[in-house]
């Protein structure tokens, strides 16, 4: 906050990396990157590089975590030690715990857990290289890995964040924009219904700015969904 004097958008509305306000960064998806996993995917998104793997459904143990009527989803978001400019020290971390929890909350909303009573599905998200928006990349990659593992879901989850910089609402902040940004609104969207399973926000947005950021996210989610469908089709030789 309060860094409004650093100019990040020029007079033509171009951002420092050449994007327009509503543009997303380049995205590359690779399926099956963890050969020993039941499902996996990686996303390069800007300079973010995130790998997600899925194991299960498997027996839930210890037994006290078992649920009679459904599977439990065990989700971990973690930053690799070399993922940040200053080395990221491994170990307990409140931010990672919170992101793991809200990511699990989002995925539980779409995975058909009732199909696998008493079992466990493990979802592992590793941030190999962090730029900005790692929680969105992680959640999206996790839904790709679940698809790769053949776990039935009501819909994919596409996550993306918009924010505010120099008083202007823009989509998918990069690292520099994030450093000087005044707000961040990450959302997790179900592309087929437009419903949400994930929502966070911090900063300062007026009601109209909020609406603008919301709309950017909805629009971007549909674009990203096209890339996801394409990656899955490339691997499995057909549409989702």
């Amino acid at each position, binding site marked *: 906050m309060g860094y409004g004097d650093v100019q990040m958008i020029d007079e033509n509305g171009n951002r420092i990396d050449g994007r327009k306000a509503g543009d997303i960064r380049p995205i590359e998806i690779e399926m099956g990157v963890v050969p020993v996993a039941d499902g996996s995917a990686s996303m390069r998104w800007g300079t973010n590089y995130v790998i997600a793997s899925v194991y299960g459904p498997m027996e839930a143990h210890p037994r006290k975590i078992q649920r009679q009527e459904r599977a439990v989803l065990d989700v971990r978001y973690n930053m690799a030690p070399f993922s940040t400019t200053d080395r990221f020290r491994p170990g307990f971390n*409140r931010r990672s715990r919170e992101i793991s*929890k809200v990511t699990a909350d989002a995925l539980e*909303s779409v995975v058909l857990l009732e199909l696998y009573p008493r079992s466990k599905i493990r979802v592992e998200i590793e941030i190999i290289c962090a730029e900005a928006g790692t929680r969105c990349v992680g959640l999206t990659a996790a839904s790709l890995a679940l698809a790769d593992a053949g776990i039935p879901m009501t819909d994919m989850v596409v996550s993306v964040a918009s924010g505010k910089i120099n008083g202007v609402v823009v989509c998918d902040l990069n690292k520099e924009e994030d450093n000087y940004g005044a707000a961040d609104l990450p959302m997790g969207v179900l592309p087929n219904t437009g419903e949400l399973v994930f929502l966070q926000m911090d900063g*300062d*947005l007026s009601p109209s700015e909020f609406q603008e950021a919301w709309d950017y996210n909805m629009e971007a989610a549909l674009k990203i969904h096209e890339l996801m469908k394409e990656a899955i089709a490339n691997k499995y030789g057909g549409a989702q």
Partner: protein
Amino acid sequence: MAQPLVPELLRAHLTELATRDQRADGRGQWEGRELSVEVGVLDRAEGSAKVQMGDTIVFCGIKFQLQTPYPDRPDEGGLMTSAELRPLAGRHIEPGPPSPESIEIGRVVDRGIRESGCINTKDLCIIPGEKVWQVIIDCFAISDDGNLFDAFGLAAIAALHNATLPGERFDVGEDRKLPVNKTPIMCSYQKVGGRFVYDSNREEEVGGDERIHITLGEDDHVHSLQKGLKGVFSASEFVEIMDAAKQRCAELRKIVDSL
């Protein structure tokens, strides 16, 4: 917190009530429980508040420490929020290291305060580059009958408004009131029986689905949002609770500002 067994009977009951636009304790959809807010209640804290919402009771205490500022922000103090869910406050709260729930609640309360800018960290500077104040906001549950998020959020901002910088005790000048520029207010909504309600009690929490926590500042500016727990919601549902939040946050802000 241990995973509570969610009896399907409770869910069915709450759903049945919802179809008749009713809640288990008789409240309306957007109606909060009986509320009391007291400040200055803790003898050893530099600022404090007690909030009671129905049978949910919490304390918040403000403490200060001296610290060295970060080199890149030599004139800014620090802010830290911690939420302790001690087993005192409920049968469902287990002892041990912080649960994901307590971590989430602490971070959500923290974001609401921090992002509103109600504390200007430059107001916490004592000697630039050498000594700044760190504000520590400790939220502490006495009795958890649901919606600790809002109780903690309200107690935190009320306690901040009540706080005094203890310059004399730390030998860095006179005591003075902590400058608090704004009054961010959190309101939480949970989907119960298929529709969102305000201020869910513990029964509704156990038998309900996703929660959405909204922190608003002056002029309905949004400072923090958090969706928690399993569940899907639509854009129109969100618009509905955002409208409810705007009204309720304004009411609660008046209460806090009048303390």
